[in-house]
């Protein structure tokens, strides 16, 4: 339809021209449609009455009302531009209508409650996925994303490479990039005179320690500069105050006896203070005291007792500090080469890391793996949500078509689906947060020792926000999109066909197959990882430890107050005899450390070079001084020679047992070592009487390295503690009580904190692996269940849709078996494809697990085969049930339904 030729515009009045110009402000569709008509109408109005008042009125009306019209047209355009353009009937009334939102929510709730099984399963799936991810995210967030709870936490650093001496601390203080240094050492002490004697952990700290970490007192005061003169004051930690004194404030100002010496209680630390884990060995320090500067070893560069932390100067970076530390390391290696250079000439470096990294860095890899695992789980859950939403969308095509026919535009329908998705997301968030709260509790209960800073991990607003965002994203992407896709299509045909046969067409059905494929492959990754970790855990359980675990009980003994080995051993010997005479005890022994006492890379207690006389050792040997019937208690496997008898222990030179790797390294073979002599640095010469097999002293997954067992009598120093071990016969349930009584009959003031069976030690030693294998198994099982559920639900749904079709086929003579086979194939085909993809992905995932595995390869084919089999078997079962239903269709009945 041609419009008025533009030539007519020439010579038109200025007012008309101006009106034409401002019409350009209207949205283009409006302008195109009505612009010319408006201009010509205005022109006619202008021409109709030439009187001044009429023209002024016309101008005022036409131009004055224009801004309002422009705004209204753009508003409509912005909201419904597609419908203006298409000329399809849509919403007329613009504006944000709160009533409409409330109404939308009500309609959504009603619509969701009409399909309770869909709603419940979607909410549960969302909750499960979101809950799992939120749980692990909470832990990761607290460990890695939040600063430690100390002032200037982002500037706190730690000097790694073990502990340092006081002269070293002074060296560090010369570093310009660090403005403050603190240090602490930890030791075990006995508290007596306050009920049963107890063993407590005591931290000795330097002057500014508490202000450095922002600690304040709950009662009394903290340490003052003058306290560092005599060092006979103590600050109690809040927990210890509560546990031992029931929060009695009168203890402040009193004198208590620590290791027999009187010490004044100056105050109690604030309950809110979280002690810096890396500064204190062990779980939590009970007592805080000033460093003892009168200690005879204080100036000894070899007396490494201090954990050291520093605060960077405001402008300095960790790199600056690392450069300064390198300078210090080089200088002191030059000045004191025998302390700070290694045998191979390299200097002992001083690595600087942030305090945060030092605290939680060790957990990073494990948590990342868990985060990866829960993300896979979330994806599997998402795929199921998508399944459900598609199915529901299809089931609703008729409903949506009716609505459309009644005048609801696509935005109204989309808006309603959107509202429903958000409602589901909100419910999913609630369930997810509930699950996360339970999951977190379970996680922390399962493994407090595997997680640093575990006590700080709680759910809070930040995590809630995360869960809500995750849930909304999931619901919208995996819930709204599939239903929109379905809702947008086939509406008319749905009406025409009476809403009977809609299957969403080829696209929807291949989308469903793709979802099944994805689910199966994701699940395979989880199942395979779980399989690897389980095998690893089982391998650890079956790994011969090389010593006896059954019927062995142990207790740490902290005999203090002796400076000479002789009297110290006499006291220990009396204890051993008392314990050995206890009914049911077969033999008793003690040693510097017992097997599995120190696991996870933390190797205690004495290392020195062992070599043939006159030669140099090129690798340190772990020295294990033992006494009593050690070899009867732990029964190590003897490869050559024999044990020494108790009488022979005092012989000159002292007898010694080598482990196999040391014997082979020094003498070529186990047999060759017997009756030879060795020299141990700092302990003199020994005669080798026998060779024992390699054991797992430092953990089931760690080789021992070179090790030598010597009599306690040959030990050149008095250690802070020793460990008693007894082998019992018969029932041993009351062993802890009886052993404690026996100890107290000899040493009434000696604390006996922890009587443990070797079986408990062994279980602690594998706790990390067990923790991970339990979690991964749980994740794998849930993923498997979800994948199976998704497959089952999809097939059941398809069978439901094609009931009529199948009925007709049966009526026309199709075999039930072939119908069943068709359905089965429809399930198994995508599952097999998923297994292929999953196997490739699992192979990659296994490599990530590599260094957490023990005794099983990351690409172990039998585990992979097993995982694939489990998965395909599950898929077959999940497909077979719907297939049977298809086979059971009664053609007469289906046709009668029509």
């Amino acid at each position, binding site marked *: *339809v041609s419009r008025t030729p533009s030539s007519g515009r020439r010579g038109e009045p200025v007012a008309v021209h101006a*009106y034409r110009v401002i019409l350009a402000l209207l949205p283009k569709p409006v302008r195109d449609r009505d612009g010319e008509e*408006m201009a010509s109408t205005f022109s006619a109005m202008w021409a109709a009455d030439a009187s001044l008042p009429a023209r002024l*009125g016309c101008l005022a009306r036409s131009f004055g009302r*224009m801004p309002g019209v422009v705004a*209204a*047209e753009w508003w409509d355009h912005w909201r419904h531009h597609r419908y203006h353009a298409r000329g399809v*009937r849509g919403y007329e009334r613009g504006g944000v209508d709160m009533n409409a939102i409330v*109404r939308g929510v009500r309609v959504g709730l009603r619509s969701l409650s009409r399909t309770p099984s869909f709603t419940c399963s979607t909410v549960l799936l969302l909750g499960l996925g979101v809950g799992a991810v939120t749980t692990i995210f909470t832990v990761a967030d607290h460990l890695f994303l939040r600063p430690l709870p100390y002032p200037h936490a982002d500037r706190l650093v730690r000097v790694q490479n073990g502990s340092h001496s006081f002269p070293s601390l002074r060296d560090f203080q010369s570093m310009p990039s660090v403005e403050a240094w603190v240090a602490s050492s930890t030791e075990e002490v006995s508290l007596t005179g306050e009920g049963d004697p107890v063993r407590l952990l005591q931290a000795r700290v330097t002057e500014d320690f508490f202000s450095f970490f922002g600690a304040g007192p709950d009662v009394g005061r903290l340490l003052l500069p003058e306290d560092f003169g005599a060092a006979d004051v103590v600050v109690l930690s809040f927990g210890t105050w509560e546990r031992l004194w029931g929060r009695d404030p009168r203890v402040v100002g009193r004198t208590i006896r620590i290791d027999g010496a009187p010490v004044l209680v100056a105050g109690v630390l604030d309950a809110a203070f979280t002690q810096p884990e890396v500064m204190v060995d062990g779980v939590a320090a009970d007592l805080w005291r000033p460093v003892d500067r009168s200690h005879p070893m204080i100036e000894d560069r070899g007396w490494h007792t201090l954990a050291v932390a520093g605060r960077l100067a405001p402008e300095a970076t960790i790199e600056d500090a690392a450069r300064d530390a390198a300078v210090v390391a080089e200088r002191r290696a030059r000045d004191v080469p025998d302390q700070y250079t290694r045998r191979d000439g390299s200097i002992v470096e001083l690595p600087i890391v942030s305090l945060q990294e030092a605290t939680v860095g060790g957990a990073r890899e494990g948590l990342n793996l868990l985060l990866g695992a829960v993300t896979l789980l979330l994806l599997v859950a998402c795929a199921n949500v998508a399944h459900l939403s598609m199915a529901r969308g299809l089931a609703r095509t008729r409903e949506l078509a009716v609505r459309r026919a009644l005048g609801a535009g696509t935005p*109204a329908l989309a808006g309603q689906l959107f509202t429903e998705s958000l409602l589901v997301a909100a419910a999913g968030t609630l369930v997810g947060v509930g699950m996360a709260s339970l999951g977190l509790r379970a996680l922390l209960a399962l493994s407090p020792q595997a997680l640093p800073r575990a006590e700080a991990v709680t759910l809070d607003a930040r995590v809630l926000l995360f869960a809500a965002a995750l849930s909304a994203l999931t619901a919208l992407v995996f819930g709204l999109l599939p239903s929109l896709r379905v809702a947008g299509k086939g509406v008319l045909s749905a009406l025409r066909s009476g809403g009977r046969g809609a299957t969403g067409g080829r696209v929807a059905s291949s989308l469903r197959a793709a979802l099944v494929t994805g689910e199966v492959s994701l699940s395979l990754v989880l199942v395979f990882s779980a399989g690897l970790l389980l095998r690893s855990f089982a391998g650890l359980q079956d790994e011969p430890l090389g010593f006896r675990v059954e019927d062995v009980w142990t207790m740490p003994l902290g005999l203090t107050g002796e400076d000479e080995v002789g009297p110290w051993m006499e006291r220990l010997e009396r204890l051993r005899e008392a314990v050995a005479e206890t009914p049911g005890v077969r033999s008793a022994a003690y040693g510097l450390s017992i097997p599995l006492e120190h696991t996870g890379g933390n190797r205690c207690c004495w290392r020195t070079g062992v070599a043939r006389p006159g030669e140099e050792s090129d690798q340190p040997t772990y020295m294990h001084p033992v006494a009593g019937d050690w070899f009867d208690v732990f029964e190590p496997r003897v490869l050559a020679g024999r044990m020494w008898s108790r009488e022979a222990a005092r012989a000159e030179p002292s007898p010694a047992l080598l482990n196999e790797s040391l014997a082979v390294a020094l003498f070529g073979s186990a047999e060759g070592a017997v009756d030879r002599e060795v020299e141990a640095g700092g302990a003199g010469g020994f005669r080798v009487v026998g060779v024992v097999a390699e054991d797992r002293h430092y953990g089931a997954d760690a080789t021992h390295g070179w090790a030598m067992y010597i009599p306690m009598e040959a030990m050149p120093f008095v250690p802070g503690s020793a460990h008693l071990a007894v082998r019992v016969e018969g029932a041993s349930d009351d062993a802890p009580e009886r052993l404690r009584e026996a100890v107290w009959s000899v040493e009434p003031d000696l604390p006996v904190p922890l009587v443990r069976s070797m079986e408990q030690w062994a279980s602690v030693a594998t706790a990390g692996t067990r923790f991970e294998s339990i979690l991964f198994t749980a994740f794998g099982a849930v993923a498997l269940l979800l994948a199976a559920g998704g497959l089952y639900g999809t097939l059941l749904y398809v069978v439901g849709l094609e009931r009529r079709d199948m009925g007709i086929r049966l009526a026309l003579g199709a075999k039930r078996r072939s119908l069943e086979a068709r359905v089965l194939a429809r399930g198994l085909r995508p599952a097999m494809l998923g297994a292929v993809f999953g196997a490739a992905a699992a192979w990659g995932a296994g490599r990530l697990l590599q260094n957490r595995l023990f005794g099983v390869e990351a690409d172990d084919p039998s585990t992979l085969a097993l995982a694939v089999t489990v998965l395909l078997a599950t898929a077959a079962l999940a497909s077979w049930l719907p297939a049977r239903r298809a086979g059971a269709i009664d053609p007469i009945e289906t046709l009668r339904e029509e």
Partner: protein
Amino acid sequence: MYTSSDYESPDVYAMDINDLLPLAPRDLLILSVLSQGPLHGYGIVRAVTERSDSGVLLDPANLYRVLRRMTRDGWIVETEDESEDAARRRTYAITRTGQSVLRAEVSRLERLLGTVRPALANGGRRRSK
């Protein structure tokens, strides 16, 4: 199964003509002038001005906004008037739907007036006594 009564959007109730009422005076006037024959834009402006005794004065932009809405709602239709000169003008004609809306509004107004008039009459009589 789903029934339309579950749906509460205005679109469904829009099927009941009474829900479209009352009409804005401007809409009522436009419908009423169109009920007497098709008119083009300026014709509507002029007729409405006359009919309302200059009480309702239209401007082109607003007029076409209203006409577009009425067209979309099916109250009026566009026709191309070819009888006049070469410059074809778009004219608007009322539809049956438009007629019903107009009638419904007129009868609503009459009913309304019918309920109000006796009161006015009564009040007048009482006052006169």
